[in-house]
């Protein structure tokens, strides 16, 4: 028995040793550096640290490669773009003190603030932004948001490494045009038709030479200059122009009028990461706080993957500096985060629908709960282009090609009931597309919840009522998760109740769901999908999402030529009032055409501890409340 005990106790000791492994290493145990300003008073009961639960740990924290909210939440702490957004989501000066368009909005000129510094004290000039924007376009970077700067002259050509101006492409184009003309003239001649097909293949296979691509890259419409238009001076020692203090002007040449483009320059893709740091750090430069030297309000001081990130105020930031340290935590499970919050271990968490009854029952918690409009609209989109299979194996066209059927399903969607019973009040019903708080919000809608009218519309449709639809075996396909199950169960039950339509539930793996919605041929009959603003402008809501040549409309099979024409006109309109009016008309056309049952807007909903003061919210706070004005937040370190 003694031997057994010896073995057992050895195991116990070994376990303890394992847990403590590497305990002596310095980086893991170092306490965060104290905040640069406002040393806490002696009687402070808490540290001057704002502790935020961010949820999932980011995959990549690189301004030109990131695309998720949790990734951007990091980037916007230690970088700042040329412009930024205020609490009303208006575009205001960031690193640039001003900007101006030329007469037809095809050229945008930014003037940087003077004396801008990086957090390490090195100067920040327009050349840095030129590098960042070009890095975003560069096909070698292949960032997921690369296409957002496609308005820049030659940017799409460089990204695709293909341009009609390349000799081989131009020749193939000429050959194709000739063949096409010949075969159009003699439509019955099969030989000519084959020649045309061959010419089309040759055209799609034509490539640019490396020299031509280099020339396209060099001609991309991004250029940093002096205020008088002179070239920035290259320092002979460093071989770059990053220390030329007079290089404060950035000129963007656009391929078409884009009066909204200054807004895009406020998002993360134009954040000026340092070229030499990216070169020194190699592919993994972004993982290290050492290389993430930026111009934002914070400095990344400690990054422990999956455990925490700590950010201290940047003393070199040009604007108001935050008065506290900031700490990100990465707790994925909402129930655990809620326990930690109630324990006072976190200052800001997102509240979950399941916890809402508990929050409302507790006067303290309900006083700490913030709930305000968010940046996403979610719809039940109707599949239009795909073929669907009935239980007997026959395929049929989407019943939603009949506008009356679309109308019926839209009228019978109880958005109010959804927000109350499914989301527990953590979303807001909407009957329009652009959400409140965003430029272009228009509450007018031709449709509202009306099940009787819905039933009538279905009866008036070519199907004449629910029975013909039920014979088709309609399916509601969704990416499976406990939450989505409840949502889908509700939708199906309500359509049964209001329209008498039987819809089967069809859960699939979330990534598979995304994959099938990407192919117009497999787009599901119903797809609960939404859009969250990239940047606050009508163009981002309407032209990027609904125009029939955009990926989203194509996948769904949605075409509305009348609206397309209005949007094309609005996108290049320079007069703000007229532009807003054109977008408003386009939105009304969209609503009247019922491409989906308009559903609900996201709400931002957070629990914030009472000692965190001065939070200014915006609809785009999908990371945490107050992230757009970090300087106004203070922490009452005296409050128990």
């Amino acid at each position, binding site marked *: 028995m003694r031997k057994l005990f010896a073995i057992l106790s050895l195991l116990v000791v070994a376990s303890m040793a394992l847990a403590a492994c590497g305990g002596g290493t310095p980086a893991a145990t170092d306490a965060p550096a104290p905040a640069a300003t406002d040393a806490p008073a002696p009687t402070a009961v808490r540290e001057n640290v704002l502790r935020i639960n961010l949820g999932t740990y980011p995959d990549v924290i690189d301004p030109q490669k990131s695309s998720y909210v949790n990734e951007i939440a990091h980037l916007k702490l230690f970088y700042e773009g040329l412009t930024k957004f205020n609490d009303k989501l208006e575009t205001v000066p960031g690193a640039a003190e001003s900007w101006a368009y030329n007469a037809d909005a095809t050229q945008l000129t930014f003037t940087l603030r003077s004396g801008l510094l990086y957090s390490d004290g090195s100067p920040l000039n327009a050349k840095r932004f030129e590098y960042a924007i070009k890095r975003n376009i560069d096909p*070698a970077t292949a960032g997921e948001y690369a296409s957002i700067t496609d308005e820049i002259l030659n940017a799409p050509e460089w990204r695709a490494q293909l341009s009609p101006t390349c000799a081989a492409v131009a020749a193939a184009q000429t050959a194709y045009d000739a063949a096409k003309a010949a075969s159009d003239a003699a439509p019955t001649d099969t030989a000519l038709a084959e020649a045309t097909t061959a010419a089309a293949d040759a055209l799609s296979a034509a490539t640019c030479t490396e020299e031509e691509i280099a020339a396209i890259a060099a001609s991309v419409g991004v250029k940093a200059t002096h205020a008088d238009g002179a070239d920035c001076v290259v320092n002979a020692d460093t071989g770059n122009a990053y220390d030329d203090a007079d290089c404060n002007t950035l000129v963007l040449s656009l391929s078409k009028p884009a009066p909204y483009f200054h807004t895009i320059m406020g998002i993360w893709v134009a954040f000026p990461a340092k070229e030499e740091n990216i070169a020194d750090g190699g592919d993994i430069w972004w993982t290290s706080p050492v290389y993430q030297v930026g111009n934002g309000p914070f400095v990344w001081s400690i990054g422990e993957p*999956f455990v925490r990130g700590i950010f201290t105020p940047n003393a070199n930031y040009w604007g108001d500096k935050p008065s506290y340290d900031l700490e990100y935590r990465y707790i994925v499970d909402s129930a655990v985060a809620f326990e930690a919050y109630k324990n006072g271990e976190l200052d800001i968490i997102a509240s979950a629908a399941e916890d809402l009854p508990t929050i409302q029952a507790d006067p303290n918690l309900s006083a700490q709960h913030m709930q305000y409009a968010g940046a996403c609209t979610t719809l039940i989109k109707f599949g239009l282009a795909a073929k669907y299979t009935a239980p007997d194996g026959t395929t049929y066209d989407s019943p939603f090609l009949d506008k009356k059927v679309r109308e019926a399903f839209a009228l019978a969607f109880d958005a109010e009931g959804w927000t109350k019973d499914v989301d527990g009040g953590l979303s807001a019903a909407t009957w329009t597309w652009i959400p409140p708080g965003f430029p272009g919000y228009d509450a007018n809608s031709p449709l509202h919840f009306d099940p009787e009218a819905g039933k009538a519309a279905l009866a008036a449709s070519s199907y004449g009522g629910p029975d013909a639809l039920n014979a088709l075996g309609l399916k509601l396909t969704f990416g499976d998760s406990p939450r989505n199950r409840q949502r889908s169960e509700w939708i199906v039950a309500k359509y049964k109740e209001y329209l008498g339509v039987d819809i089967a539930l069809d859960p699939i793996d979330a*990534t*598979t769901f995304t*994959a099938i919605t990407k192919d117009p041929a497999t787009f599901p009959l119903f797809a609960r999908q939404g859009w969250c603003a990239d940047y606050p402008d009508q163009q981002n809501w309407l032209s990027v999402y609904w125009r029939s040549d955009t990926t989203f409309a194509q996948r769904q099979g949605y075409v509305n030529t009348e609206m397309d024409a209005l949007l094309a006109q609005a996108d290049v309109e320079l007069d703000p009032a007229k532009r807003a009016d054109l977008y408003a008309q386009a939105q009304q056309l969209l609503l009247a055409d019922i491409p989906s049952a308009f559903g609900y807007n996201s709400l931002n909903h957070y629990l914030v501890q009472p000692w965190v003061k001065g939070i200014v919210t915006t609809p785009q706070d999908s990371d945490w409340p107050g992230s757009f004005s970090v300087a106004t937040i203070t922490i009452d370190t005296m409050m128990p």
Partner: protein
Amino acid sequence: MATYFIRRMFWLFPVLLTVSLVTFIIMRSAPGGPWDTDSDRRQVDASTRKSLDAYYGLDKPLWRQFTAYVFGDINSVTKKFSCGMICGNLGPSYRQRGRTVQSILFSAPPLQSFWQSRFGYSLRLGLIALSFAIVLGIPIGVVAALKQNTLWDYIGLFIATSGISVPSFVLAIFLIIIFGSWLHWIDIIVDNWNEVKYWLMPATVLGFGTMAYTARLTRSSMLEVMRQDYVRTARSKGLAERIVIIKHMLKNALIPVVTILGPALAGLVTGSFIIETMFSFPGMGRAYVQAIGQRDYSMIMGTTMVYALLVAVANLSVDLVYVFIDPRIRFEE
């Protein structure tokens, strides 16, 4: 024995190759790809997709992608030969851009030791959970068998039943509420994983099921062994009771227990997805599940290969331990 061991080591190669081939086939037949990000946001456009495919070699035929992963290939962008899995190169992660799979799994943050890597964290947690399972499970099983149908037996049964019928995601939240929110014994948010106390809850939750299984298996095989002649003989020889229990009974009862503990270690190291989520533990279980959802192909391959190697080695050790426990077992023919 030595030849047997060497022969088994050689068998690792075909096993790993088969696992990689099977994984590759099922992985690539799943719909969607690494650039299919969710559809509520801007999508990766065609030309970006093309450059990404070219960079990662996804534009090549499938068989070539497989051989490229396992043996190596010339990168079409950099024009350099990069050796594949056989050189220990598990490929670049498609989602954590710029990082390689082996660095994600095995490299610690700067200035920290291997034990602070994701694999190191998981290995430590797995080992602790396993020792927890052994240290508690075997004695509980032995006591329950010796005192069959007494209160002790029922207490053991109760522990084992709760260990298997309460899912780990439920046990975790219960423990967090009890020890974090009510008793305030530990912080829910872990500041420093170097402190031993933070490991107790995740290791307990992770090892609980294995502990319960170990206890029940030990109990049942002890009961079996207790009825054998040699135990009677040993007793009648007048041997001390503890020697009978340990030398004659426990040693013979351990075969099934050892069988499950080998693969259990591999499972505990990599299969802690839920525990990692609940305790925000920086291990590799989440890397695997996330990689599947994101279709991060080389990450899926890499984590599967690490797991396969663990399983194969664990099962080999089990076979060796068999011989140690029961000298009658022979593997050479």
